């Protein structure tokens, strides 16, 4: 787990069963134990190489109990629960195909664009460690169906108490409803608040009345606000500067 590849191999507390936390091995154990569950490996392309396991929601809590209680894994410590928002994506693919020339010459190469719509989802990522065996992390992910109406995931708070506040925070900021959570209500925002601010499409309330160098979205909003002010009052109204 050291971050510097050029550090010497000093006498360190080397995790004894480092191989167990290799994601493929954990995957194999889980697939042997839960043959019906849809578990897949999500590759992590970066240098950190922390691959994660995508679990399907119906078996998630059973799998979590197994991960916690299995004598070889003993992942008794859930360190971090994060929410991630993956919005809908429209992917444009260009393909070069050859079409016959109507004039009778050689085939022409034309670019054909196909648009593909990839639906988005919300995700909850759990980082699991073992305090008993001092290994980790094992990263598991749960994904919702979409971002609008299928936003329910099973809560893993009955397995690890540390998920309690973190799942409440994900409910508050992302909108994922955790089923089976003992006390699911907003954590950081007030209860009357309606939005889910950490989503990528959230627009914050516009209270930048004065921005010294407005540009991009702020400029567009400032112009709209001034236009609305003018329309409402019917005159060129400048707010008075208060000393």
């Amino acid at each position, binding site marked *: 787990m050291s971050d510097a590849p050029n550090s010497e191999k000093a006498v360190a507390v080397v995790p004894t069963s480092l191989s167990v936390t290799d994601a493929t091995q954990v995957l194999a154990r889980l697939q042997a134990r839960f043959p019906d569950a849809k578990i897949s490996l999500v590759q992590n392309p970066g240098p950190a190489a922390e691959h994660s396991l995508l679990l399907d929601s119906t078996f998630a809590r059973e799998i979590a109990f197994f991960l916690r209680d299995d004598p070889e894994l003993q992942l008794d410590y859930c360190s971090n629960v994060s929410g991630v928002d993956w919005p809908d994506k429209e992917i444009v693919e260009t393909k070069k195909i050859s079409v016959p020339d109507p004039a009778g010459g050689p085939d022409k190469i034309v670019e054909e664009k196909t648009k593909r719509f990839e639906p988005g989802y919300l995700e909850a990522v759990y980082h699991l460690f073992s305090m008993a065996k001092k290994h980790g992390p094992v990263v598991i992910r749960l994904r919702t169906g979409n971002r609008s109406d299928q936003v329910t995931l099973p809560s893993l708070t009955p397995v690890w108490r540390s998920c309690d506040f973190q799942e409440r925070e994900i409910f508050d900021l992302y909108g994922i409803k955790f089923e089976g959570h003992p006390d699911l209500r907003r954590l950081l925002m007030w209860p009357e*608040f309606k939005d889910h*601010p950490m989503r990528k499409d959230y627009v914050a*309330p516009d209270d930048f009345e004065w921005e010294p160098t407005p540009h991009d979205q702020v400029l567009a909003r400032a112009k709209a606000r001034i236009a609305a002010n003018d329309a409402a009052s019917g005159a060129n109204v*400048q707010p008075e500067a208060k000393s």
Partner: protein
Amino acid sequence: MSENSSTPAPAPFPAAGNISDAEREELRRHGILLTSLEELYNWGRSNSIWPLQFGLACCAIEMIAAATARFDIARFGAEIFRPSPRQADLMIVSGTVTKKMAPQVVRLWNQMPEPKYCIAMGACAISGGPFKQGYNVLKGIDRFIPVDIYIPGCPPRPEALLNGLIQLQEKIRAERIAGANAAKHLRADAPSEFPVPEYGEHDIVPSCNPAVWNPPANPRADKLKS
């Protein structure tokens, strides 16, 4: 001290007559104190300002550091940080005021008895600071309550807080008891309580108090007209 600060020295009180400060000093050496009620009243108030123990965020640590032995706010009579707003006369808003906290801050301000003063300490209390682009950050506490002294910094050093306190003391000493320029707490028309904002669905309602704060005129307003 007045020569070194940026605020001008307060004007001599007419009740003290045409006697200059040097002559007053001469009389004092003979055991004769010549003063006015205003001066005495303001001297008492400015040298025993009791702040409210109200730290919000990182600036609170510098406020506590100002109260410790090295920077010693006790020299200015302000070492008693009162936990209850009913007993305090200075609210040092130190730290970011979030929209969730804003109704509480205004409620505390309302509970403080007059005369009361407010210092906005730190960039966050002045205008939202480094967290200005925040959906939960109130862009400055002066949107809801009147602020007397602004202390910039992130966080301002304890010496900066002491400088702000000194400026507040000078401001208090320049206040009048009667007349058109009477101190705020002695005028019938100046409000001492302000409406508390409510939690709305997307923002607090209202997002600012127009009686206290209006956005400054934008010098680039002509460029914003499309």
